[in-house]
Structures are given as C-alpha cells and as structure tokens.
C-alpha cells in the first residue's frame, strides 16, 4: 500500500470516528419491516382492483359494436388512454423489484416468479435466474412462469472465487460462466468454464478477458486475455480459433475513419452477434491505447466480415451497443458516473447517424419486442421512450411518446412477446 492509500485510510477512519446512528438498528429494522408488510397488505387489494379495472376497460375497448360494459363510461371508446396501460410497447416485461421477479403485462396483469431472485435472463424459452448469497451468486434454471426451478450452479464456499456472467447455450444444454479467482489482493483471473446441465460435468476452458455470447450450442465467443483478439472457443474440446484480431486491416481502416487522429485500435471486444451464418452481424468494440488505459472507443458492425456501419459518438469513456429487432440498435455512451454525461442514441444498421440522445439508461436498455419502444434503466427506475424516426420506420409502427415519459419502478430483466 503506498503513501496516498495509507493517508486515505487514515483520513476516512478519522472522519467517521465516533459516528453512530441515532437509532437502535435492530428496533429500526423490525419497525421498517412491519411498515413494509403493512404497505404490501394494502397494496395487494389495490393491485387486484387496478387489474380488474384495467381488464374490464380493455375488454370494453375490444368488445364488438353494441356490446358495452359498464366501465366504458369512464373512457371514450376507441381512444387511446395511456394511463390505463402499465407500460407502452406491448409484450410482457420481466421486472425485478427488491428480489421479486414478476412478469408484467400492459393491462397490469402480473405473474410472480416463486422465490427470491436478484436477476434473470430469458434464454431459449426458459429463465436463467440468479440470487446473491453471502458466498457469491447462485444460478437457477426454470420455466418462464417460474415452475421447475433447479439450482444448476450453487454459490461458492470460498470468498476467493466468484462466478459472473453465466449464459445458457442456445439448446439449453450447457451453461457457460466466468469464474473469478482472487490470486492476490491485486490479481484476479477470469476463467471460462462450462457446465453440462444433464451430467453436471464442468470443464475449464482457460483464461479469457470477457465472455461475449454463444454463437451456436457448442461454440462460445470470448475476448482473449490480452484484449487483442476475439476467439471462438469450443465448449466440447476447449479448442480456440482466432475470430478477429485488433490488427485486422478491415477493422483498423474502419476505426481510423471513425476516429481520425486516434491511431490504430489497441483493444477489441464485442457487444454480441445477431443472426446466423452469412446473415450474421457482429458488433465489434474497438479502442485506442491512452496514457492510462483505453480511449476513443467505436463500435463497428460487420456483416459477412465487411464493415457495415461504425458508430463513434462523443463522451467516449464507456460505449456499448444494444441490439434491437429489425436492424435497430441503441448506442450508449458516457463518462462513468459523471452526471449529465450519459446518453442513449437510437440508430439503425443503415446509417451511422444517431438520434437525439436521451439522458437515461445508465444501467442498461431493452427494446420492446416490436422495436418501437425502448426501456431505459436507471437505478430502480425504467423510462419508456419511443424509438424515433427514421430508426422506427423499420418497425411495424412508429409510436410517439412525449415527455414526461412513462415510468416504472423496478429493473427490467427481459421484454418478450
């Protein structure tokens, strides 16, 4: 530990010396817990009333001419009433609220997943959910409604390792995950592992820097430990094949055109692949080497190995691409936690042109199944915005959601039809 670190430790210790909460923590916890239970007790019947009202309202809207339900007196038939919808964009949302996973439908109907989980993703028609424990993260598979829960990857028993980023293979047979081993206080190694869900057999596939995605049910795309290449790794044999290198002339040219004066890219990553075979598109993240780490990142989308479009927005400290349907993408960039620096832009694969930015989405973004609405996640709040023109023109219908944008509390885990 160097001098500054020691002085920082002393300064913090001195600054909190003698500080104590002004309440008895145990009493406060019990009181807060009772208050929560009371709120839930009130919220339950209210939610039922809201759901019934919404259901009746929607039934009335879709009733054949001449058939009217009593509740239609509160609304004008045929007129869109946004307040009656839990969220715009259709489909169903999987939300996490304080460890409770719930499917939410536009009419307010909900289906709660049994048990407590801290997150989930939808994969090949099932849920991969996880919960944080005192010893790390435990992963479970289950059906979309939460039945047939199975603990597939228990949390460790050693604080010197943790598991992150588990992904189910497209056929649902294998789980890929990154095991982080604490070698020393300053050294952590990330190792790719696969777990056969039928046999329980685990295999160490070697050190990587980042697990990207499964490209098929036996192959994983990952960034090499030196962040200089993307590799295809066989989940069966562990054999590695270089997929793209940062010095690939096609990438160098695309990057230098997008970031004039930045020099050649020094690091490579990926925000995933959509499509298969010749129609596949891969988002390649590139960045130059700066004084301390990386700088001026750009996203190059390749189609059939050739650059299709390059996005290089400003405030480039963090840059990511989220895939939407029908060639839609969301580009997000910002300067870490600096307020006001975070921007989300909608775009298409047809043009590097970005929409006007939204200052939301620091914790992620999800497209609606049709692509015409985007859920932008910040902390525990979801902001819904409509995909703007011209990007939305590739979807079935452009919507126009004006500020103030609809909000939900919770964390979006998935948005499906």
């Amino acid at each position: 530990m160097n001098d500054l670190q020691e002085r920082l430790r002393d300064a913090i210790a001195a600054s909190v010396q003698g500080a104590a909460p002004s309440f008895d923590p145990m009493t406060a916890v019990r009181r807060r817990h009772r208050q929560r239970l009371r709120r839930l007790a009130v919220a339950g019947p209210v939610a039922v009333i809201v759901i019934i009202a919404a259901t009746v309202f929607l039934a009335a809207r879709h009733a054949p001419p001449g058939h009217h339900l009593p509740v239609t007196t509160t609304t004008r038939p045929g007129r869109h009433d946004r307040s009656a919808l839990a969220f715009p964009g259709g489909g169903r949302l999987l939300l996490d609220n304080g460890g409770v996973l719930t499917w939410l439908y536009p009419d307010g109907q909900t289906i709660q997943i049994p048990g407590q989980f801290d997150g989930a993703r939808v994969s090949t028609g099932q849920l991969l959910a996880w919960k944080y424990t005192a010893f790390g993260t435990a992963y479970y598979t289950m059906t979309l409604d939460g039945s047939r829960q199975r603990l597939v990857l228990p949390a460790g028993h050693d604080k010197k390792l943790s598991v992150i980023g588990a992904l189910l293979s497209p056929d649902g047979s294998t789980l890929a995950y990154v095991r982080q081993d604490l070698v020393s206080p300053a050294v952590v190694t990330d190792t790719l592992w696969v777990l056969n869900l039928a046999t329980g057999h685990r295999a160490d596939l070697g050190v990587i820097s980042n697990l990207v995605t499964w490209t098929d049910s036996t192959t994983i795309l990952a960034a090499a430990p030196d962040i200089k290449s993307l590799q295809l790794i066989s989940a069966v044999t562990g054999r590695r094949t270089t997929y793209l290198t940062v010095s690939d002339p096609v990438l160098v040219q695309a990057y230098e055109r997008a970031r004039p004066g930045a020099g050649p890219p020094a690091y490579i990553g990926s925000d995933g692949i959509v499509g298969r075979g010749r129609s596949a598109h891969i988002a390649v993240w590139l960045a130059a080497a700066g004084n301390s780490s990386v700088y001026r990142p750009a996203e190059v989308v390749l189609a059939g190995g050739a650059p299709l479009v390059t996005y290089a927005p400003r405030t480039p400290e963090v840059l990511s691409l989220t895939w939407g349907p029908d060639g839609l993408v969301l580009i997000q960039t910002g300067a870490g936690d600096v307020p006001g620096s975070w921007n989300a832009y909608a775009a298409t694969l047809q043009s590097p042109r970005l929409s006007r930015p939204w200052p939301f989405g620091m914790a992620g973004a999800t497209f609606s199944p049709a692509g015409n609405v985007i859920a932008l996640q910040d902390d525990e709040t979801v902001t819904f915005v409509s995909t703007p023109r011209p990007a939305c023109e590739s979807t079935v219908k452009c919507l126009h959601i004006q500020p103030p944008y609809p909000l939900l509390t919770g964390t979006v885990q998935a948005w499906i039809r």
Partner: protein
Amino acid sequence: MADSEDRQPPSSEVDDAFEQFVRGRSMHLFRLALVLTGWDQAAAEDVLQIALERAYRRRRQLFRHGSAEPYVRKVVVNAAIDWRRVRRRRAEHSLDLASDLAATDRLGQVAERDALVRALTALAPKQRAVLVLRYWEDVPDAEIAAALNCSAGTVRSQASRGLARLRELSGDSPVTRSAYSARGENHE
C-alpha cells in the same frame, strides 16, 4: 430444492444470528454508509436501514452459510450510490465538496486529511465506493466487483483512476487527469 445445503436452520437460531450481526456490525456499516453518502447522517441512516431490512427479509438464506456482511455491504454500497445519483440528478444540493467537514473536524489540525476527505466526496459515487472498499475496508477486488456488478478489471481501473483524481483534487501532486478508463462490463 432437495439439496441438503438448503435445509433451513431453526427460525430462532436465524433470528439470534441476525440480531448478533446487527448489534456487532451496525456501527461499522453505518460508518461505511456515512462515507459513501458524503457524510450525510440522515442519508446514511436511511441507507443502513434499507440494507438491514433487506437482509432481515433474507436472513434465512444469508445465515445459512455464515456471515451476512458481504450481502449487506453490497446493499449499503448500491443504496448509497443510488442515493447519490438521485441527488445529483435532482440537483437538490450542491455536491461539489463536503463543506461542513472542516467545522466538524474536532481537532482542526488535519488539513491534509480534510483535503483528502473533501476530494473523496467529489468523486463519482462508484469510484468512491471502489476506493473506500479497497483501501479502507480491505475488501478483495473480486468481492468489490460482485458488490458493484462489474468485473475485477473495472474495479482495478476505477481504483487507479480514482487515486489519480484524488491526487489531483486534493492537490497531492500535479498529476494530469486521466480522462478515460477501461470499458465497463455489462451488468447482470
């Protein structure tokens, strides 16, 4: 689950373990919340209550394998970061520096400490959390990464950037600000 590890200890044992934990660790967790919220007593108390109440709800799971501290620390850190972000976004208060610190410094003689603490207050919430957990709490990078939902590499780069920024803000040395950092990892 049929797994034997999932057998629940009796509820009275769990309650006792939870109470012992709260009695033993609340003070320290409160101080952690205090640092992370920028020495805001009310916010730190709120953050502590949020964390402990969440832990209380999950006490059966948390105490099955031992200490609940990593989980509660994670909630404290994230609740404090959320609180800071909301506060910044709403622009209710200036967060430039902890202006009251000098007044509350009882000895009035630790200008350097004061400068460091002020500088720490001015850092971005996540960066501050990394420095506090790494250098004050001695939490391993992997555990910090798990608490902040990022990679250990991001923790290291944030720590490096945070220290550089701290030097700059506290006037420790004329270090050029490192403007860019490694890319953040996708959250789970």
